[in-house]
Every structure is written in C-alpha cells, then in structure tokens.
C-alpha cells in the first residue's frame, strides 16, 4: 500500500525505456532545481502513469510548483531530465492544461472570449468552439456569465473560468497547483466531484498539488509526500479507495482516516 522511497533512483530506471514511455506519461529523472544559491528541489525521480491521478503534498517551498513548471516546460531542471510522452521536455509544452491560483484571464475579453482563447490558438472550428464553451461553463457552474468581463467577477469565479478554459480545449494532462485555494469549502467539495467526473470522462492524467491531505486522498490514485526543501519524494502512498468515489461519503471510510494519519505523520516528522 505504501513504499518508502529511500533511494529514488532504485525505484524507476534512470532512462525511460520505450515500453516505460508508453505507460508513463511523465517521468522525472533525478531532477534538481537550483535558483542561484538556493537549492530548491531534488534529486527527484518520479513517474506518472497515463490516466493516473497523482497528488503531491509537501511543506511550502519544497518545490511542488517547480515540478509542475518543469512538466509545462516553463522551467528547465538544473540537472536531470523530465520526459513527457517519451520526449524530453525542452520548451513550453502545449499538451498540458496548467491551472494555478493565478488568474490568467485577459481583461478585454468576456468570460466566453477567455474560454474560447486557447481553442482559437489551436484552430478549433467555430461551431465546435461554441459547443465546448457552453459545455465547459456549465461544468463549472458559470452558465449565464458568458458576457461578463473578468473585472466583474470574484476570485472564486475567475478560478472557475480558468478551469472551464482548460476543460474546453481538453488537454491530455492537467497540472493543477492548489487550484481550489480561493474557493469556499462547499464549492470546493462540488469542484472535487466535478473534477473526478471530468477525470473519469476524459481519461486525462492529473497531477494535483495541494497542501490539503483530505483533498489529496479524496481525489488521487497516488499521493506523493515531498520532504522539506530541498524537496524530494519522501513517501508515495497508493490510495486504494474504491472508484467511482463519492467525495463526501468517502471521508467516512475508516481507510480514509488511516491514510490521513499516515500522510500526516510523513509530513510532520520532516
């Protein structure tokens, strides 16, 4: 059920073999991140399987966002390599949908126009675009706000616009960096259910960074606990809770509590 990663190099071969590449969509190989004098992360070796839902938890500043940036190709590792779909990530990776807490709406477009934007970049046909915008906005509960401008919306609504925008163009991997931090608890729970539904429907791969253990366990197949900076995977736990999950009921499962306890200790005894 869980495995201590004493030497991460041993768990996964250092070079991604072709058959590994087929199963593993993302592979970090002895990756480190240094910002000047600051040794921020690593060496980290970790694989994410195609279609898997992986959650990453760890103390703040341990390099969780850094990991996602490397998959997105907006940051180069200081050493080691990141492979995506069998290829080394060398530049911006437009296969990913990257959702952070930051709002990347452009203020001069309406909600609809913002959701449409990546599809325009990708040359999606107009009729299909309209349909997908409608669907995506409905998924995040923003039907009726098509014509609103970002200036008119609250932080939580803007966050949902970001999610709808990603959903609409349908990337094969979702990188989510504490995406629900600005939502209230109730909405958060609804978004969890929605996310699992989307995951099941699209069979996309999810890498989900959070500091909320309950959230991680509720959603993920596997939870990676990172150590304090310079962070590297310290504990990887398979979450063997039945699917499909009910995001509320699952918290009452005794196994759920056991996972919380286990992860909590891993985080704490750092």
């Amino acid at each position: 059920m869980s495995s201590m990663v004493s030497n991460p190099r041993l768990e996964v071969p250092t070079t991604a073999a072709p058959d590994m590449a087929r199963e593993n969509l993302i592979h970090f190989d002895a990756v480190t991140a240094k910002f000047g004098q600051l040794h921020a992360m690593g060496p980290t070796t970790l694989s994410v399987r195609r279609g898997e839902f992986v959650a990453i938890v760890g103390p703040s500043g341990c390099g969780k966002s850094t990991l996602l940036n490397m998959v997105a190709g907006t940051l180069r590792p200081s050493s080691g390599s990141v492979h995506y779909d069998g290829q080394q990530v060398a530049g911006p990776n437009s296969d990913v949908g990257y959702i952070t807490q930051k709002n990347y709406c452009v203020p001069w477009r309406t909600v609809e126009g913002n959701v449409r934007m990546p599809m325009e970049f990708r040359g999606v046909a107009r009729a299909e675009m309209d349909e997908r915008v409608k669907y995506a906005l409905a998924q995040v509960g923003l039907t009726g706000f098509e014509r609103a401008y970002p200036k008119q919306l609250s932080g939580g609504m803007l966050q949902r616009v970001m999610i709808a925008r990603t959903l609409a163009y349908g990337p094969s991997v979702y990188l989510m960096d504490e995406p629900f931090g600005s939502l209230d608890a109730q909405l958060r729970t609804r978004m969890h259910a929605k996310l699992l539904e989307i995951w099941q429907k699209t069979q996309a791969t999810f890498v989900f960074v959070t500091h909320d253990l309950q959230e991680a366990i509720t959603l993920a197949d596997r939870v990676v606990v990172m150590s304090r900076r310079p962070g590297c995977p310290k504990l990887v736990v398979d979450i063997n809770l039945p699917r499909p999950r009910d995001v509320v009921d699952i918290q009452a499962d005794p196994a759920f509590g056991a996972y919380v306890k286990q992860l909590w200790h891993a985080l704490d005894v750092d």
Partner: protein
Amino acid sequence: MSGIIEIRKIPRSRWRRKLSSERAFDSFLQLAMLTGTLLLWEWLSTALHAEFWVSRPSSVAQAMLVWARSGNLASDLKLTLTEAGIGFLIGSLAGAIVGFLLGWVDRLGRLFEPLVLSLYTLPKVALAPLFVLWFGIGPLNKIMFSALLVFFMVFFTTFQGTRQVDRDLVANARLLGASPMSIWFKIAIPFAAVWVFTGIRIGLPYALIGAIVGEFVAADSGVGFRIKEATSFFDTSAVFAGLIVLMAISMVLLGLLKLIELRLMRWQNPGDIITTEIGA
C-alpha cells in the same frame, strides 16, 4: 450546478432619480457660475478701468464677430485644425508603433532606454525654431511640430505601459498553444491598445499646442497667428477671442475622445460587480 446572477441590489429607480436631479442641479450651478463670472468680469474691468489688460466679455464678443465677418475665423480655424489633425494622426500612429515595439521587445527597450530617458525631460518646444529651419514656415512645419509633441506623449505612455505586461501571461498563452503570431495579435496588441488610448487622450491637447506654437513662431494665418498678431496690436479683445476659440476646440475634441473610448474600452468599466450564489 447552475449560476444564478444576482446583480448587487440597490433600489435603482429611486437613487437614479435622485442622482439625475442632483446632476441637473449641478448643471444649473455651472451655468450660474459661468454667467456670474462673465458679469463680474464685465463689471470689474469697467470699474477698475482695466479693459486694456483684460478686455471684457462684450468687447470679446464683438472682436469675435469682426473676426467671423471677415471670413478669417473660418479659414484660420480650418487651417489650424487641419495642421493639428494631420499632426495628431501622424504623431499618434508613430508613437503607438514605436512605443509598442520598444515596450514589447525587451531587447529594443533596453537598447533605446538611454535615448528615451534623455528625450523624456527635453522641453520639446525648444525644437520649434529648428523645425522652421527644416520644414519652412508653411503648414508642414506646424504639422510636423504637432506630430512631434503627440508622438512623445503617445510613445512614452505606450512604452511604459506595454513594458508592464505580465510575462507570465505570455508564458501561459504559449502553454495554451499560442503561436508567436497569436501572441502578438491576441495578447500583445490588445494589451498595448489600452496604453495607446491613454497616450492618445493625454496627447490630443498637444496636437493643438503644436499647431499653435508653430504658428506663433512663424506663420501668416491660423488661430495662433491671429492671437500673436492681436497681441502685437495690443488688441486684448481679439486675443481673448482667439483663446475662447481654442477652449471650444479642446472641449469638442475631449468629448469626441471620450465617446470613442467608451465604445472601444467597454471592458474597463463594464458595470456592476456580479456576486453569485451557486444553486445546488
């Protein structure tokens, strides 16, 4: 999940009515102040025998009438407005393009920064005599001078503003699949447009300043020339008539600009904040 729009509730009709009656009263006040000032001006200048220095409204009106009757008002206005108008178009177009390029392309911005900074504080009016040398004493001189002043206003604003673009936003657009072309047309240019507009709003009055200063330096017609000529004849009333014409032009131009901005930049002031409840 369904979104329920709930525009912030304010007993709208009531405070609208209150607001509009307040506005009407304000307009009345403004009109009253204007009339008061004119009357006071008329009275004081007569009472203090200061007509030579400050003229008085009735004389100004008369001077205006003389100016109009001679046919010069129309031709002067036409000339000055044409100079300012063409200068404005050239200046704002060039300012927008250069400001955008230097602001957007980091390398260019760094390269030209010393030049930009040294020009920033240069009193551009000092260039007016040089422009006579370059462009003669005809309308071209005024057009170019007007263009120069507008150029700097639009250029500086666009340059400073465009430089502030969030580089993360651009990186994010790349992840969203934007080609360099899309980034220019769907991110960079719309972003810069806001600043171009701000620059244009600040720069518009300078188009007129450029034309007038140009006419002050060397000309044989135009509103600026007429003001200068009247001054040399100590004809204070005609000077004021010229100034009032300039004020009227400025107000019309500003109104025009506001209209354009309202239409194009609706998103900057889209109305109420929307609060929402998500229905289960």
